[in-house]
Each structure stands twice: as structure tokens, then as C-alpha cells.
């Protein structure tokens, strides 16, 4: 956990928000019937699997599904279950597993740590160490600071995320540069 430094924490949140405001396309989208934040999170969780590469050994065989775990009670779990129905990633099916508490937690490919389990975060991360689980949580800066890999945030009502690339790499996960480019912190730093 100590390997995950605070280097990738976005420090210029206000500027990122400003940039987001300058996007006309986003404004056009904003005028459309807005999907709920939970729905967006569910879709994002699903889509992260398409831009993250796990080492082959995490799958039992080529037909083994990609497991998406949700820790804690959250509407995302239900929405995620709906979203993965019929979806595949790289030929693998997707399954959703719910964990009500830290006790029953088993390693998954992606684990969403709901805000309700926030207080257990250090223990969760400790439990998952070496398990090649992509951890996703809320409150980006704080989450990634504590060693989480992808942290959601809201920018002008849009769901964005930050990525702690160090933490992901330490867990043996390869995050696509295309995904990294979209990370809020990186874009904030890249902005003029």
C-alpha cells in the first residue's frame, strides 16, 4: 500500500471542472435525458474491463468469466447485473458477485467498493493485496490516495474518474493508455 503514492491525485479539480464546462458536446449531451449516476457507474465498471488487461493466470481457463464484484449495499450492483447480461469481454462472459461485508470478500477481476464500505477500505485493500483485483471506489482523490486504483468523481454532474496507475501496475494490471488519457488528473495536468 505504501507503494501507492499520492502522485496521481488530481490537485486541480476546479480547473478540470472548468475544462469540462468548456466542452460544447458535453453540453449537448447534458440536455439529453440524463442517465443516473449509478447507471453511468455500472456501465463504466463494465467498460473498464475492456481497457484493462489482466495477466492470463487470473483466469482458470479461456472460458472463465470476468467477475465484477460489488462490496457493500449499493444500487450499482443491481444495475451492473442488468448491464452485464449478454455482454462479453474478449470472448468471456461477465458475472456479478455481491459481497455484503469484508468477511465474505473473495478476489474478483473488478471490485467496486461502495461508499457504505468506505470505513473498511484499508482492510479491503489489505485483503486484496497480490490478488490482481482492479479496485474502483468513490471520492477519487481520497480513494486513490489510500491505494485504490480507479476513483469516480463528479465533474459538473458528469461522472469522471482518476486512475492510480502505480497501484494498478503493482497489482500486475495493464491499464490501456487510452483509458489513462481520460483520467481526470492526467487531463488536468495536461491542460494548458
Amino acid at each position, binding site marked *: 500500500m505504501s507503494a501507492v503514492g499520492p502522485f496521481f491525485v488530481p490537485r486541480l479539480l476546479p480547473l478540470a471542472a472548468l475544462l469540462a464546462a468548456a466542452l460544447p*458536446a458535453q453540453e449537448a449531451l447534458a440536455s439529453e435525458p440524463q442517465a443516473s449516476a449509478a447507471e453511468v457507474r455500472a456501465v463504466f465498471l463494465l467498460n473498464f474491463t*475492456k481497457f484493462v488487461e489482466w495477466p492470463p493466470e487470473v483466469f482458470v481457463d479461456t472460458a472463465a468469466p470476468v467477475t465484477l464484484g460489488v462490496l457493500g449495499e449499493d444500487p450499482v450492483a443491481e444495475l451492473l447485473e442488468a448491464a452485464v447480461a449478454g455482454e462479453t469481454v474478449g470472448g468471456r462472459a461477465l458475472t456479478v458477485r455481491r459481497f455484503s461485508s469484508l468477511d465474505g470478500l473473495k478476489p474478483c477481476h473488478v471490485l467496486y467498493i461502495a461508499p457504505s464500505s468506505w470505513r473498511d477500505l484499508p482492510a479491503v485493500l489489505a485483503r486484496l493485496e497480490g490478488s490482481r483485483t482492479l479496485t474502483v471506489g468513490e471520492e477519487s482523490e481520497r480513494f486513490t490516495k489510500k491505494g485504490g486504483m480507479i476513483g469516480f468523481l463528479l465533474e459538473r454532474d458528469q461522472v469522471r474518474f482518476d486512475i492510480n496507475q502505480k497501484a494498478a501496475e503493482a497489482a500486475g494490471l495493464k491499464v490501456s493508455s487510452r483509458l489513462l488519457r481520460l483520467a481526470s488528473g492526467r487531463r488536468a495536468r495536461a491542460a494548458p
Partner: protein
Amino acid sequence: MRGFRDLPISQKLMLLMTATSVLALLLACGAFVAAEVAATRGRMARALTLRADILGANSAAALTFNDPKAAEETLATLKIDAGVLGARIYAADGRPFASYLRPGAGGLPPSAPAEGQGFTAGRLEAARTLLLDGRPIGTIYVAQDLGEMYRTFALLAGVTLAVLVLCSFVAWALAARFQRLISGPLLRLTETAKAVAERGDYSARASDGSRDELGVLVGAFNEMLRQIQLRDAELERRVAERTAELSAANAELESFSYSVAHDLRAPLRHIHSFSRMVLQDYAGTLDAAGAELLEKVCASSVRMGRLIDDLLTLARLVRCDLRVGEADLSRLAREAADDLREAEPGRAVEFVIADGLRVQGDAVLLATVVQNLLGNAWKYTSKHASARIEFGTARQDGRPVYFVRDDGAGFDMAYAGKLFKPFSRLHSLREFEGSGVGLAAAQRILARHGGRIWCEGEVERGATFYFTLWDKPA
């Protein structure tokens, strides 16, 4: 085509060769340009499709995570290519998601176009479906203006045209050189043929060289000339041979008749003198009938002597040398007329002799001609109480013709051909004296002067003898 047919062969060959080359070049260049245009269009379409695919792959995450800003940043990299008019990413529902538009470059489709690529007015467009993990997540559209392509085509056309023009010049220059291979021998053959036709120079030969049909033609032509020359030589040789044979035969005949005539004189003289002696020495013993017979023998021998003399004269005329100088035919005619009047002063004959008839010729021989013709006229007018004899000139075909005209006994034109044969006569001796040698002699003299003699006449209405000089060189 009429004009082409009349062109010299060298120009025809040049035109043909150049036209063939230029046509082939045109076809080749046309095919090349067409292939290049098609290839360029295909290449550009593929390149644009590829570019759309790359952009799409780079924008997939942005589209997935609903980040138009990131997608526009990706599209904005197209700025470095001034040929790109614009690009737009559409979400899965077909609505625009992110756009890039070069300033002042038209518009972009408001909703996702169907996948494909194509050339429309002035632009090349490509639309590709964005796939993520094999599933369509949207569409990307890229448009490129064709200015660059048209500039490429213009350059291609320019270079092709330059090559075409240059190659045409080279083809013309080469044709000008190569056509000599064919036209050269032909022209030389033509020159030779002209030399033969115009100058009759059968010794001319066309120069030869190649072994193709032209060479065969030239060879055949030369062979033809050689045969003509050979035949000419053979003909000349034969003519010369025949002429020599004829001359020899003629000379033999002449000398034979001369010697015969000459050798006949001595026995004839004996016959005459011995007959005279018998008449004188044996006048007493001969009766009247015997004396009369002997007188006839004498008269006949005298006449025979005259015949022999004429024969010898005729032979001499042919053998003697011709001394050509100025001869005054008018003077010769007047002298002959005077001689005739002196010999028979009793006759009433009017001579009309033209003045100044001067010619080139042997004066002595021409005097004989004039004497014979005037004497002939004088003789055959003797049966008429008065006569008129005219010596003059007329022109026939631009050349002078001399004539002697009388109004005497004349002759039947049916026998005109016999007049100039020696010793042939149209009238009996009793009618007119003469040996029949005069006209034959005149004909021979005139022949030696390159002239002719002929006559017109009618019984009892006179005769006209015409003659010419130097119709052809003697």
C-alpha cells in the same frame, strides 16, 4: 488522303513511323495515366479509411466513457494535415459526439453516415463503424479535400504530356534517320531510272547494298539494264556486220560492173572499127543491103559505147570524193539552159529560173543534177511547139524543196518508181533519145548530199521533179 499519296516516300515513311510511335505512346501514356489515377484514388481511399480506423481506435475509450473533450483532442490531431476537411465521431445512437472542422471547410453530416468511402463533389469521405471488443459503439466520419489529388493528377498529366512531346520529337528524329534505310536505295534507284529514261544511258547502274526486297529490286533493275545493254551491243554489232557485208557486196558489185563496162569497151571498139573498115574497104563488093546492115552494126556499137560510158559515169559518181562548198544552183541552171539552147537553137523554150538559190554541196556533182533535170525537161518537151521550163524553190515542212517543172510529155504516175532506176525508160528510143541513166545519176548524187528526189506528172501535161538537200547528214 490524296495529299498523303503524293508525298515523297521519305516523308511518307517518316509520317508513318512517327504516327505509329505517337499513337503507341498515346495509348501507353493514356493507360498509364488511367491506371495511375485509379491507383491514386484507391490508395487515397484506403489511406483515409485507415486513418478513420486509427482515429476511431484512439477515440474508443473517450466514446465509451462519454468524454467528448478527449475525443475532440484526438480529432484535433488532424490539424497537421491541411488536406483533411473535418472529422466527426457519432455515438451509437447516431448523434454527433465529437467533431473537428477545418476553418472554412463546409459542413459535416448531422447524423452518422453508413459505413463506406467514396468520392463526392470535391471531397473524399470515409465512414467507419467504431468497434470495441467486437461491438459497434459508434461511427467515425473523415472527409478530405481532393486538391492534393488533383495537383498530383495535374503533375502526372504535365509529366506525361512532356514525355509525349519529347518522345514524339525523338520518334520524328529517329524516323528521319531510319527512313533513309528504305528511301535511300529507292531514291538512288529512281535517279538511275531517270538517267536511263532521260538520257538513254543504259550503262547507268543503281547502287545496291541490302539483301531485302529493295536489294532484290535494285539487283533486278541492274540486271535488266545489263541485258538491254547487251542486246543493244548485239544489235549494233549485227547492224555493223550487215552494213559491212552490204557495203562489201555493193563495192564488189560496183567494181564488177565497172570492170565489166571497162573491159567491154575494147571489143566494142574493135567491132565498130572493123565494121567501119569493111564499109570503107569493101564498099564495092558489098551490095546495098549488106552495107545497110553493117551501118546498123556501127550505130548499135556507138550506142552501146555511150551506154558503157554512162555506166562508168554512174559508177564513178558513187566512188568519187565529195567536195562540199558553196554552190549557186541558179547559176548552174542558167549555164545548163544556155548549153541546151546552143545545142538546139531552133526550139522555142522559155526558161524561168529563180535567183539566188545557193546551197552547200559539191558544185560539180550538183551541176550534173541540174543539167540532167533540165536536159530531161528539154528532151520531153521537144514534141511540143513551145515549152516552158521552170527551176525554183518551195518550202515543205519548213525546209527548202527545189523543183524543175516542164509542160512536156509527162508520164503516168503508176510508173513513177521506175524513173530513177538506171537504164529503165518510160518512152521508147524512137520517141526520145537517151540511155536512162540521167535521173539515176541525179538520185545518187542527191543521196550523197543527204537529199531525196521524187516526181509528179501526168501524161501530156508535164512533169515536176522535186529534190532536197541535207535532210540528214551525208
